[in-house]
C-alpha cells in the first residue's frame, strides 16, 4: 500500500478535460471508509521529499538528498540531519548513516537490495499535505498549511461509519454487488494486488499440493465477483506478459498424491474470511486439514501484496519459490466515489497509469452541493 513507484491518481488531474471545466475549491471535509484510506491520506514516503536516491554499482552505498524548502509538520525544516535520524530509527545498527553536506550517506557492510527498498518504501516522513489530529477521541487528517507543494484543497479528512456514508469508500470485491447508491459511482484500478498464501513456513511439496487443490476460478468468479484475475505467478498478464506460463489448473487427484501435512492454520483478515474458508474447503478435498483463523500470526497467511518488481520469467519463478507464495488471484482496488468529489478521475477518464496508483488526496476537492 505504501508503494508510490506507480503513477499517482490525481497528479495530473488538473490537465484532464473534466477539471478544466471546473475550478478547484478550497475547504470542506472529506469522509472516507475504511480507516485505511485515512492512513493513506496521512502517509508520505521519503522518496516524495527527496531527490532521486542514488545507488553505487556495488549496492553498498546510497545517497539521499532532501529537497530544499520542505517543512515538517512541526514546522522545522527537513534537512539532512532529520533524514539521517529517520533512517537510523528505521534500521538501527544495520547500516551506516553519515551526513555529508545536504545529503545523507547510507552504507552497508555488504551488497544489499533491501536497503534501497527500505529507503524507498518504508520510511515515512511527517511532511505530507495532511497531518494527524485527534479530537474527542476521533482521529482525522487536517490540511497542512505550510506544505511545500501548497496547501491541499480539503480542510479535513475524517472517517465515515459506513461505506454508504462516505465520500470515498474502498469496497471489497464481494461487496461491490451489494453496494447500492445513486450518489456514488464505482472506480477501480487495474489488478494491482496479489492475493496469495504466504506459505514460507510450509514445505515446497505442501505448497505445490495446496496450489493444485485451490479452485481459483471459483474464488475469482464467486467470491471476488469477477473483480480480479486468476493468478499462478507474481505478476498479472498485463504487467509481465508471461503470466500464462504459470499453471492455475486445479488438480485435486494430483494434490492428493502428495504427502499429507499436519493441520495447517490459515490466517486471514476479516475481509478475506470467505476466501480463507473456501481455500480450507478446497484443501480438505485434497486431504489437507486447513483451518482458517482470523489472525496474522499463523503458519500460513492469506495476504494481499503489492506487485513486485521482476524482470524475467525465471526471476519471477525464483522469487515465487524464495518467498514461498501460493498465488491465487490478482485483484484491483475498487472505490465508491461520491459525485461531489472532484480531483478523482471519473470512470472512463483515467488512463491505465492512473488505474495502478494510490489515491492522492492532496488533489481532491469537494464541489458545492
Amino acid at each position, binding site marked *: 500500500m505504501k508503494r508510490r513507484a506507480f503513477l499517482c491518481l490525481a497528479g495530473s488531474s488538473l490537465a484532464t478535460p473534466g477539471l478544466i471545466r471546473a475550478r478547484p475549491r478550497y475547504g470542506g471535509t472529506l469522509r472516507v471508509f475504511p480507516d485505511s484510506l485515512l492512513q493513506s491520506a496521512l502517509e508520505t514516503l521519503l522518496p516524495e521529499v527527496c531527490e532521486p536516491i542514488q545507488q553505487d554499482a556495488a549496492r553498498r552505498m546510497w545517497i539521499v538528498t532532501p529537497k530544499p524548502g520542505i517543512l515538517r509538520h512541526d514546522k522545522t525544516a527537513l534537512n539532512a540531519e532529520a533524514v539521517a535520524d529517520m533512517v537510523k530509527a528505521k534500521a538501527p545498527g544495520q547500516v551506516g548513516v553519515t551526513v555529508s553536506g545536504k545529503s545523507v550517506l547510507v552504507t552497508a557492510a555488504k551488497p544489499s537490495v533491501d536497503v534501497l527498498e527500505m529507503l524507498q518504501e518504508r520510511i515515512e516522513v511527517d511532511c505530507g499535505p495532511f497531518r494527524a489530529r485527534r479530537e474527542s477521541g476521533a482521529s482525522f487528517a487536517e490540511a497542512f498549511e505550510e506544505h511545500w507543494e501548497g496547501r491541499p484543497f480539503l480542510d479535513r479528512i475524517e472517517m465515515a461509519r459506513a461505506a454508504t456514508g462516505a465520500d470515498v469508500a474502498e469496497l471489497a470485491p464481494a461487496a461491490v*454487488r*451489494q453496494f447500492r447508491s445513486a450518489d456514488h459511482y464505482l472506480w477501480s484500478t487495474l489488478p494491482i494486488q496479489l492475493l496469495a498464501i504466504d506459505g514460507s513456513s510450509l514445505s515446497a511439496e505442501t505448497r505445490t499440493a495446496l496450489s493444485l487443490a485451490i*479452485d481459483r476460478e*471459483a474464488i475469482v468468479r464467486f467470491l471476488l*465477483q469477477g473483480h480480479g484475475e486468476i493468478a499462478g505467478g507474481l505478476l498479472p498478464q498485463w504487467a509481465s506478459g508471461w503470466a500464462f506460463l504459470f499453471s492455475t489448473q486445479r488438480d485435486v487427484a494430483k494434490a492428493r498424491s502428495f504427502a499429507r501435512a499436519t493441520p495447517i492454520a490459515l490466517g486471514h483478515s476479516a475481509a478475506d474470511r470467505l476466501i480463507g*474458508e*473456501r481455500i*480450507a474447503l478446497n484443501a480438505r478435498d485434497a486431504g489437507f486439514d486447513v*483451518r*482458517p483463523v482470523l489472525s496474522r500470526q499463523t503458519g500460513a497467511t492469506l495476504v494481499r501484496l503489492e506487485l513486485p518488481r521482476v524482470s524475467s520469467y525465471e526471476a519471477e519463478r525464483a522469487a515465487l519459490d524464495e518467498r514461498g507464495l501460493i498465488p491465487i488471484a490478482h485483484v484491483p482496488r475498487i472505490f465508491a466515489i461520491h459525485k461531489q468529489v472532484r480531483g478523482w478521475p471519473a470512470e472512463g477518464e483515467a488512463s491505465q497509469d492512473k488505474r495502478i496508483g494510490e489515491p492522492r488526496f492532496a488533489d481532491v476537492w469537494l464541489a458545492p452541493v
Partner: protein
Amino acid sequence: MSFRWKIFLGIAVSVAAVVWLVVFLVSSSLTQVFEAREKRLTATLSAQFEREFARRGRELQARLKALASTQRVLEIPGQTDYAPLVDAAGALSEGLGFDFFEIVATDGSIISSAHWPARFGYKEDWILQPNRSGKPFVRLEELPNQSKQLALFAVERAFSGSNYVLLAGGVRLDESFLENIALPDGMAVSLNRQSLPDGAAVTPFPLKDNAGVELASIYLGQSRKELDVLQDAVRQAGYRIGGIGVFLGALFSLWFSSSVSRPLRRLAETVQRVALGDWDARATETSSDEVGRLATDFNSMTEQLAGQKSRMIQAERVAAWRELARRLAHELKNPLFPLQLTVENLRRSREAKPEVFNEVFEESTRTLLAELDELKTIIGRFSDFARMPAPTFEPVDINQIVQEVVRVPMSEQVTVKLELGERLPMVDGDPEQLRRALRNLALNAMDVMPNGGTLTLRTSLATGGRVRVEVSDTGQGLTPEECSRLFTPYYTTKQHGTGLGLAIVQSVISDHRGTIAVESEPGKGSTFRLELNRYEQIAARG
C-alpha cells in the same frame, strides 16, 4: 453382663430395629411413589417434546414456504450464472430466524449458503434424498470450524415455471432451543448429560434422522431433590423417634429390669447367705408370680434342708458317740487286759509261790504303772480333742504362720520348700489354732517321708477372694479310699497314730468356716489344700 443390662439392651435394640424398619418401609414407599411419578412425567414430557418438535418443524416449514413464494426467490430458478447469487442466502434469510439456510440447485450443488458462504458449488447430496421433503427432520450440520451442530431442518422447493431450486432452512437444536420447552418444577432438559444436576434421574430421548440413525440425545433430568428432602425428613424423624424410643426404652427397661431383678437379687442374696451357712435365711415372698413361687419353693427347700441337716447332725453325733465309745472301749480295753492279767498273776504268785512274790510284785507293779500311764495318755488325748476351744478371730498373716511352722526343727532328710504368694489379704482366724493345724499337716507330711523328700508349703489367692494354703509331700501317696476316710477321727494309716491329728485339723478349719481337701495318687505324694476366708469377708458378714 447383668440381667438388668441384658433387658436394657434388648429393649433398646428392639426399639431401634422397629424404628429402622419403619423408616426403611416409608422410604421405600416414597421411592416407589416418586418413581411412578417420574414415569408419568417422563411420558408426558416425551409427548411434549414430540409436539414441540412438530410445532417447530411446522414453523420452519411455513417460513420456508413463505420465502419460496417471494419474488426474490422466484427469480433464482432458471438462472444460468449463480455467481451473483453467492451471498443471496444470507440476504434472503435475514430476519427469518434461520440458523442455517441454503439455496441448492436441482443437482444438489449449493448456490448460496448463509451459514457457510464459502461452500457454494459443493454438493448437498442429502437434500436430494426422497424423504427430505415435506417433513422436518433432524440432522448434524457441518460448520466452517469443522464441528457439527445438531439442527432441525426442513426443505422446500421454490418453483418458477418448471424450474425450481431447493431451500433448506434449519434451526439449532441447542440449549436455547430447549429453553423454550415448558418444564414442570424440578425437571431440567439438556443436550449434555453432564450439565444436568448431580443426582438427577436422567432419561435420554434419542434424536434420529429420517433414516432412523440416532444422531444425539436429549437428556431429561428429573430432580430427586424433593424425594431426597422427604427421605431426609423421614430419616430425621426416624432418628428422633428412635432416639426418643431408645431413651424411653432405657428408662422403661431400667424400671422394668429393676422391678424384675430386685426379687431375684434378694433371692440370690438369700441363697448366698444359705451357702455361707445361714440356714435361718429366708427369701422375701413379695409376689405371687414365678419369682414369688420361686422364693416360696426356695424357702421350703431351705427349711427341708435345714431339717435334714439337723437330723444328719443328730445322726452324725450319735454315730460319733458310738464311734467314740467304740474307740474308747477299744483303747481302754488294750491296757485293761494286761492290768487284769498282772493283778491275777500277782494274786496267783502270792498264793502259789510266796518266795518269789516280791520279785513278781516288783515286776507286776512296774507293768501296772506302765499300763496305767498308757491309760492316762489315752485319756489325755481324748481330753485334748474334747477340749478344742472356740477360735478367737483376728487378722492373720498366713504367710507369717507358714514361716513359723517351718521354723520348728524337722527331719534333716526332708527338704522344706516355701512358695508364698505376694500381697495376700489377711485371713480371718485364730493364729494359734491355724499354726497348730498347719504344724499337724507338716508333721504328718514328715512322717510319710521317712527316707527323705520335699515338703512344700504354698500360699495363694483362691477364687472368691479366699486364701489358699497347700501342704504337699513327696511320700507314697494315698489311695482314693484312704483319702475318703482320712479325716475320720481315729482313722490312721500309721502304725502308732491315734487318728486324731487330721480330725483336729479338719475341726480347726471347720471352726474357721474354711475348707480342707486332699489330692493324692499312690506313689506321687499328697497335697492338702486349705481355703480360708479373708478378714473383710467375715467382718462384712458379721
